[in-house]
């Protein structure tokens, strides 16, 4: 069974620091902010180098694109797409419908994967996007596995599912963290490198400046057999805002788990759970895959519980 495990990396520094042995493919670039430190999407030479590094490692190289561009982004977007096409990127990821149109009209040979911010909710939406050249589809994060299965079955298209990591919850025109440049004495682009969480009672979200992500890590480890049985073969571990250690260790868990999930009996290894729990500061959830609120966990693992949310402002 051929399965793709992929992830996302924003810049050359993180790419060079990452052990990618358990990944098949990587999306290059930060989709939220042009000013993100060393963002591949703003640096032609570094993007070329990133693509070369992935190629040399035998990985499929994809190039991401901005989730919420404005007019003044578009010349840069065209430049990035041009580099992707010329340097042999195997696909670009479009979260924005205008960028999809540019890719379709101006770079017709470049395959396009639809990203989670493109608001793909329906089978009819797949048909529209397919008409603009899309070949792989990440459904909106709000869809359940049942709905995703219905769409995939109806349309006969490959879906890409995020199976682990912090789920994107929103994107802004503004940076949430710029207020703190003066207060904390830390300048952009270093601010969003910090581990910043917004908490209220049992709720928690992670801020990456212009992006908001789930505080909990989506974890589909228990449910891999179902995903494979549903016919899914393209899986993402979202690590854009994570460390190289997270990227490596979580991938190792999922690579092994996916191999076991393809077998008749899926035996889970306690070691896997220790790893994912150690990297989940707030706890685990299943996103929207089971038709519930995104921060809920539908499995039986006790590791899903537990968080830092009980810490009071004074730290006691």
């Amino acid at each position, binding site marked *: 069974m051929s399965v793709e495990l992929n992830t996302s990396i924003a810049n050359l520094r993180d790419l060079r620091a990452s052990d990618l042995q358990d990944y098949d493919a990587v999306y290059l670039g930060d989709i939220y902010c042009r000013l993100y430190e060393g963002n591949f999407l703003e640096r032609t030479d570094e993007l070329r180098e990133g693509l070369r590094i992935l190629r040399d490692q035998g990985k499929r190289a994809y190039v991401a694109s901005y989730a919420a561009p404005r007019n003044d982004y578009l010349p840069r977007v065209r430049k990035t797409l041009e580099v992707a096409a010329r340097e042999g990127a195997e696909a670009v990821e479009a979260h924005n419908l205008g*960028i999809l149109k540019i890719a379709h009209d101006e770079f017709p040979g470049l395959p396009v994967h639809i990203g989670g911010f493109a608001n793909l909710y329906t089978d*009819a939406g797949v048909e529209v996007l397919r008409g603009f050249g899309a070949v792989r589809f990440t459904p909106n994060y709000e869809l359940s596995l049942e709905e995703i299965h219905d769409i995939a079955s109806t349309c006969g298209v490959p879906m890409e599912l995020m199976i682990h990591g912090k789920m994107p*919850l929103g*994107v802004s025109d503004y940076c949430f963290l710029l207020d703190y440049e003066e207060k904390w004495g830390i300048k952009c682009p270093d601010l969003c490198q910090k581990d910043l969480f917004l908490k209220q009672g049992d709720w928690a979200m992670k801020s990456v400046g212009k992006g908001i992500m789930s505080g909990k890590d989506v974890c589909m480890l228990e449910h891999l057999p179902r995903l494979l049985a549903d016919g899914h073969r393209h899986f993402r571990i979202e690590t854009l805002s994570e460390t190289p250690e997270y990227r490596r260790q979580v991938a190792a868990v999922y690579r092994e788990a996916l191999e076991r999930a393809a077998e008749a009996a899926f035996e889970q290894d306690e070691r896997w759970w220790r790893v994912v729990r150690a990297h989940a500061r707030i706890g685990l959830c299943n996103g929207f895959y089971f038709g519930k609120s*995104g921060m809920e966990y539908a499995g039986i693992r006790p590791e899903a519980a537990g968080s830092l949310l009980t810490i009071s402002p*004074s730290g006691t």
Partner: protein
Amino acid sequence: MVTLLAPAGSPEAVLAALDAGADAVYVGLKGWSRGGARGELTWEELGWAQRRVCNDGRELQVALNTIPLPHERSRLFQQIPALLDLGMRSLIVNDIGILAILRGRFPTLRLTASIGCGAQTVADVGFFRDLGASAVVLPGTVGPNEVREITAVQGILVEVMVHMVEEFILLGKCWMPSYVHLKPSPLPTDASAGPVPEGAERGLRQTGSMKRGGVGTCFKICQQPWDLYEGDSWREARRFPSRQVSGVADVAGYVEAGAHVLKLQGRSLPPDQLAPVVRRYREALDGVASGSVPADRPTLPAAWTVVGR
């Protein structure tokens, strides 16, 4: 001639918008609009509003801008012939797939890609033109200079939501509320909507989803007080930034930039708060038409805004 498109969430608000000088009014159809039940009209009210607006030589638009689950979708499409029978031609929708299907099945409809579709660039507008939209709504955060570039796209009308609340997360790109709460809610009882399909109870309307809600608004997660932590250390309590966008001072700029429609947010506003907002923009547009560009005015008082919509 730029059209002033005003919201109305009740028959009384329709009258207020007309009296205040709106060229067109948009309303939600009960059960099918993203704005929620507080700002929707029943079929009976919709029929009355259509007659009233048409008698004035103006236009009524209907928002059908939720994204139904697949088994609900046929129910949405069942509404269209009755809308056409009422003489309605302009619908506001929020999903590219639904827009494409409506375009194919009902070629006489004028379809507007809702602000929730997230268009902000010249390329986005080109996408919706290619898809068959007649109009696309841009947020009022897209300024006149950007709109000037965007109106170069031929074959589609450009609407600007000049009066709106700007939340921190972009409209159509936010699922913070459903991350915290997702509450399936039943569709409203409506005999004219036909029987509820088998299996409808498994999903129903997804209250808490900005894109699929429609019976009530989101849970306003972005308006909650939050504690900001760096790692394990508490740093401060704060809220997400938000602001009222009041584009009265930019009306001349948008007109000069070639915007076709200036749209106002606020279907939940009571008539006495809606009327002065509409009037202010009417005066601004008339001022531009007569060559007397209105002076830069301060943001409208809080009571005139759509905060708490």
